[in-house]
């Protein structure tokens, strides 16, 4: 069956995936959020306010940039970069947090909590909260705090409280657990600004919708500038929000090949990668039925990626749906390949990509190299890499 764009259904299902596997305490808030979002979605005033912020505050539309030198060196298809790294706060995450902050205001709540892995979503949430004058608390794993110091400092500058999470693997998954626990106690006054297309309904749908501005712009830019749609689009997938936002407006363009790139880590051994769609199986994590990395008892596996933003043992239910329907092809890129792409884009184009986005760049280079020069490959450059400079330096033994 071809993938539909009329998903999820009212129960939050993308085919068999999605749903709401959360404690009863949260159900009422999720229903209220779903109802409020559905009203906002059909309210021209809401859309107008969001569009205004995206234009004047975020700097949208983000450019579609033709990476000529890189394309020439590879000798294959033309690589174009959708420059989400040029957004205010340096990544696509702000598209979603402004939408959710507006919803928070509509619901009359004053306190916002969020989880963050690489810190990009944390910074974007802290930014949106500063803009609207909302209280902001960001949960972040201690391991991620260590490797993403610049973002931790930014969040504090923006007035957010960063709460270190010392449980489990001390990364994104544990930060989500801790944010959910906070929400269990504060649900009546607090909005949980979830940063990816994961979690219980309506988050996967709502975050996809807010991020779809990426794909809508890309589609218009391709048609206006190149006179046609690209042959292929590549985006990295952790939870999968930049990829979902990029892919969704192209789902019905069946000639456009869509490729999601997961974190291949060090090897295919469980615990050494975060390639959930490639190496996992359907199960339940963080309120949603989707592909997960689990052991045979149903315990969540440890994962590894050089990139803190892809270091997650689950993925969005819509990605699972796209995998099962065959509409999107999923592949993975190892740590060392991502690091090589990080260097190469910096040197050939003068653009330092986030380590997350470097996974997409790495695969796009491989894909483009095997194609004809008249073909077009678009890469979602989801974020910029300054936040990763210190960690990459550390991996190379450079003192800063």
């Amino acid at each position, binding site marked *: 069956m071809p993938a539909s764009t009329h998903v999820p259904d009212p129960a939050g299902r993308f085919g068999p995936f999605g749903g709401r596997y959360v404690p009863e305490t949260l159900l009422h808030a999720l229903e209220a959020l779903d109802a409020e979002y559905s009203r906002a979605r059909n309210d021209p005033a809401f859309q107008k306010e969001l569009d205004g912020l995206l234009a004047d505050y975020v700097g949208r539309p983000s450019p579609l940039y033709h990476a000529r030198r890189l394309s020439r060196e590879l000798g294959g298809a033309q690589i174009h970069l959708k420059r989400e790294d040029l957004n205010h706060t340096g990544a696509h995450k702000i598209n979603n947090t402004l939408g959710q902050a507006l919803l928070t205001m509509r619901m009359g709540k004053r306190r916002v909590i969020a989880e963050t892995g690489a810190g990009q979503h944390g910074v974007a949430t802290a930014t949106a909260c500063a803009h609207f004058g909302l209280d902001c608390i960001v949960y972040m794993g201690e391991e991620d705090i260590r490797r993403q110091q610049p973002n931790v400092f930014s969040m504090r500058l923006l007035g957010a409280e960063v709460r270190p999470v010392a449980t489990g693997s001390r990364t994104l998954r544990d930060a989500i*657990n801790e944010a959910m626990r906070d929400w269990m106690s504060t649900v009546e006054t607090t909005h949980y600004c979830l940063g990816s297309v994961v979690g219980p309904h309506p988050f996967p749908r709502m975050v996809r919708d807010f991020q779809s501005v990426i794909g809508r712009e890309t589609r218009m830019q391709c048609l206006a500038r190149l006179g046609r749609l690209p042959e292929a689009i590549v985006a990295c997938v952790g939870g999968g929000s930049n990829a979902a936002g990029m892919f969704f407006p192209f789902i019905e363009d069946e000639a456009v090949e869509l490729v999601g790139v997961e974190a291949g880590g060090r090897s295919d051994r469980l615990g050494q990668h975060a390639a959930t769609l490639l190496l996992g199986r359907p199960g339940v994590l963080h309120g949603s039925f989707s592909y997960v990395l689990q052991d045979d008892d149903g315990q969540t596996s440890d994962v590894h990626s050089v990139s803190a933003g892809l270091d997650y043992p689950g993925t969005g239910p819509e990605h699972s749906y796209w995998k099962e329907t065959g509409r999107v092809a999923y592949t993975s890129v190892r740590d060392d390949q991502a690091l090589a792409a990080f260097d190469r884009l910096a040197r050939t184009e003068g653009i330092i990509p986030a380590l997350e986005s470097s996974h997409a760049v790495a695969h796009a280079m491989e894909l483009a190299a095997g194609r004809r020069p008249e073909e077009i490959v678009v890469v979602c450059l989801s974020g910029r890499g300054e936040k990763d400079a210190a960690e990459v330096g550390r991996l190379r033994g450079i003192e800063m």
Partner: protein
Amino acid sequence: MSTIDTLFKNLRAKGQKALMPFLTAGDPDLDFTAAAIRALAERDCPLFELGIPYSDPIADGPVIQASYCRALDRGVTLAAIFEMLKGVARQVPAPIVTMVSYAIIYRQGLAEYVARAKAAGAAGAIVPDLPVEEARPLADVCRREDFSLIQLITPTTPPERAVRIAEHTTGFIYYVSVTGITGERTELPPELVDNVARLRERTDLPICIGFGISRPEHVRMLAPVADGLIVGSAMVRRMAEAAERPREQVLAELGDYVDELLAAMR
């Protein structure tokens, strides 16, 4: 009629309430879990809740989380837990229900999980991350197997939704005392007694209250409106001491603590 139905029927006939300890399976180890169930059953705990350790328990506070982590770090498996349960369920008259994440049940397969739990002697399951909308497939299996599926109602549950949850519950209703996660509280919400009393008007099912209950004064306040009270973190915290102190001593203190709560219940 399930063993849990029979238990509450008998308790109601005698005008008694159940004190239900929650114990983490495998912290510090499964032998001690079994020993604690036996010891507390002798002190007249008529029903037990056995927590199946899970890596991502979002409804649990620091004490139960940490205890799940310790058990998993020691390598406790579902197979070993069922093996332990099989032994202890034969030795004590009290029904034992498992508190288990849907992530674990789904991985086993719904019918497979229920079959294994039942074969091990479990009387039912509490699945904290399975709201009524998603519960149908598991509820169907449980009904066929006469395995109780205990659902939760919370302070944030609207009244008409509470009725719907009650209609899909077997065994007893787990009423969550607070809007929050598990863990000992000094005080419980003042409106709790009224909330439970109102729920009581809408269902004949036994109602057990859990989350935060740890002190004799809590028991005195809640026992009159409930069929049972669940004590979790306060038990788990005491049990964990067995990692460092003589086990007989920890069991004796646990027994004294339960006696104190039972006295407050009468």
